[in-house]
Structure formats: C-alpha cells, structure tokens
C-alpha cells in the first residue's frame, strides 16, 4: 500500500523540519523528489542524504518568475510532476493593531499567492497525463485562528478555500487537491518556544505531546498515494486532538 514507485514529487519548503520529513517519506515510498526552498545548502545536504532520485532547485516563493522556473526545472529533472506538496511558508507574527502592511502582504504572498502560482504552473502537465496530487500544507490556525497570526491564519484559511475550488476544477482529470493541517509539531520553529509556552500549548492538546514531522509526512504519503484517489477537496487534520473539526 501507498507505493509511490515511478512517481515524481516536488516539495517546497524542503529545507524546513516538516518539509524535510515529507521529502524523506515520499522518497522512501519510491518517488523521485525535487527539493525546493530558499536555503540552497540545506537542500543540497538533504539531496546528498537521499542519494538517487533526488534533485534540488532553490527558489523564492515571493517571485513569480522564480516559481515558473522552479516548475520547469523540476519537470525537466524528473520528466514530470505527479505530486506537488506546497509546504513552503513563513510567519510574521504581530498583534493586528501593530501589524505592518508589509508583514501582512509578505505572508499572503508567500503562503497563498506563491502556492497558487506554483500549482497553476504544474497543473497543465497533470491534466495532460490525467493524474495528479496536489497537497497544500495549511495549519490548524487557518481553521481556529490564533492571536498574533491574523496574516498567517488568513493565508492558511485561504489555502483551504483555494484547494476546494481547484479540487472541483480538476477532479475530472483524476487530479486531487487536498490540504493537510498540522497542529503543534516539534520543529526548529517550535524549538524556540520557552518551556512555559510549550506547557501552555500542551495544556490544549489531548495527546499531551507535540506531533512529529514524520506524523505529518505519513499523512502526505497517504494523500499522494493511488489509494487516496477518491479523496479530494478535504483537509486532513493531524493535531493530537487539539481541534476536532
């Protein structure tokens, strides 16, 4: 089950904690992977770790031309793109009263607009081949909201609406578009939290622990698989019971 041999996957944000785990998991199931992100060195390291069937293309998700180039280079490297995992994302947290336009716009541009552009750039090949998997990594806060993250929550909620629309547009071509919404996951991004902050978060998680990047990656493998062909327009929440939606 969930064999991805012969499939080609493009993972953005692959230099991060969750993105790296997603790339490793897809690769382990047999897929070729193209790793993208802004930190070329980290991508090269992961590429070397994976060995065969791995490619690295650094790109910026706030640059339309760079996104076009990424889609073309990934397709050239692997011959096709079957699985697109839009995982790249940034935060610029601030209470709304003090949030600058620039912080609002940057987060929307990378997390939402960049995802749309890359999906648009890859969907043509998927349509032609009558097969595709688009998996957008959203967040629990896109559904629940979170103080200090109006921009991030708006972008992540936007991904859910966008994915449902794309799912309807592309379903007849056997392309599924789904979201995966992690809760609090142990990554370098959460490592910087103080013990007190962590305790506060864990008080809201019935599972009483942070999730692991591997637990997110397992959800991506499922959504990317042939077995999940009938799942589209959905959001898979992986959050230890923190929100049940």
């Amino acid at each position, binding site marked *: 089950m969930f064999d991805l041999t012969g499939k080609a996957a493009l993972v953005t944000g692959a230099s991060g904690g969750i993105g790296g785990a997603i790339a490793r998991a897809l690769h382990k199931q047999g897929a070729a992977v193209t790793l993208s992100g802004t930190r070329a060195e980290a991508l090269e390291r992961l590429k070397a770790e994976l060995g065969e069937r791995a490619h690295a293309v650094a790109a910026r998700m706030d640059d339309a031309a760079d996104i076009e180039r990424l889609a073309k280079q990934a397709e050239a490297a692997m011959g096709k793109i079957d699985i697109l995992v839009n995982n790249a994302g940034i935060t610029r947290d601030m209470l709304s009263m003090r949030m600058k336009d620039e912080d609002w716009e940057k987060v929307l541009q990378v997390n939402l607009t960049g995802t749309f552009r890359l999906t648009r750039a890859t969907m*043509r090949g998927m*349509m*032609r081949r009558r097969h595709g998997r688009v998996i957008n990594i959203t967040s629990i806060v896109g559904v629940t909201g979170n103080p200090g993250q109006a921009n991030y929550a708006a972008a992540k909620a936007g991904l859910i609406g966008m994915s449902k629309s794309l799912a309807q*547009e*592309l379903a*007849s*071509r056997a392309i599924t578009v789904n979201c995966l919404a992690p809760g609090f996951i142990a990554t370098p991004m959460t490592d910087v939290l103080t013990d007190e902050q962590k305790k506060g978060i864990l008080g809201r998680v019935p599972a009483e622990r942070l999730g692991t990047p591997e637990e997110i990656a397992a959800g991506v493998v499922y959504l990317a698989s042939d077995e999940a062909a009938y799942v589209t327009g959905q959001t898979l929440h992986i959050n230890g019971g923190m929100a049940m939606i």
Partner: protein
Amino acid sequence: MSDIAERVKKIVVEHLGVEAAQVKEDAKFIDDLGADSLDTVELVMAFEEEFSIEIPDDAAEKIQTVGDAINFINANAKS
C-alpha cells in the same frame, strides 16, 4: 491557410481523442466533439502555444467550432 487548418485539426484530434473525420469546420467542440469546459481551456492554450499567439478570454469565448479557431488563428497568427 490550409496548413493552419491542418495543424488546428491535429491538435483537436490529439487533445480530444476524436477521429479526424469528425473534426469538420462546423463541428462544435462541446456539442459535437464531447469537450468539457476544461478541454476548451486546454485547447485554447494548445493553440496559443502552437501558433505563438495570445487568445484573449473574450475571443476564446467566441471560439466554439473548429472553423472559429481556424479563422481566429488565420487572422492573428504570424507564422
């Protein structure tokens, strides 16, 4: 002129998986050739690529038959 017509027909045959004989100039993409709305978008994009032209959305909406496509491209293509 006939060259353009041939190229258009070839794209339609390849794209919609229909018989060449069905692709007459008065054939409607949706009613006669079984295309759906996504197919028509893909066809327009394929024409744009093949003939290096841009087909604006309002013009694309009026292209409903094979002949419409040939006429538009004849009037707008450079090569």
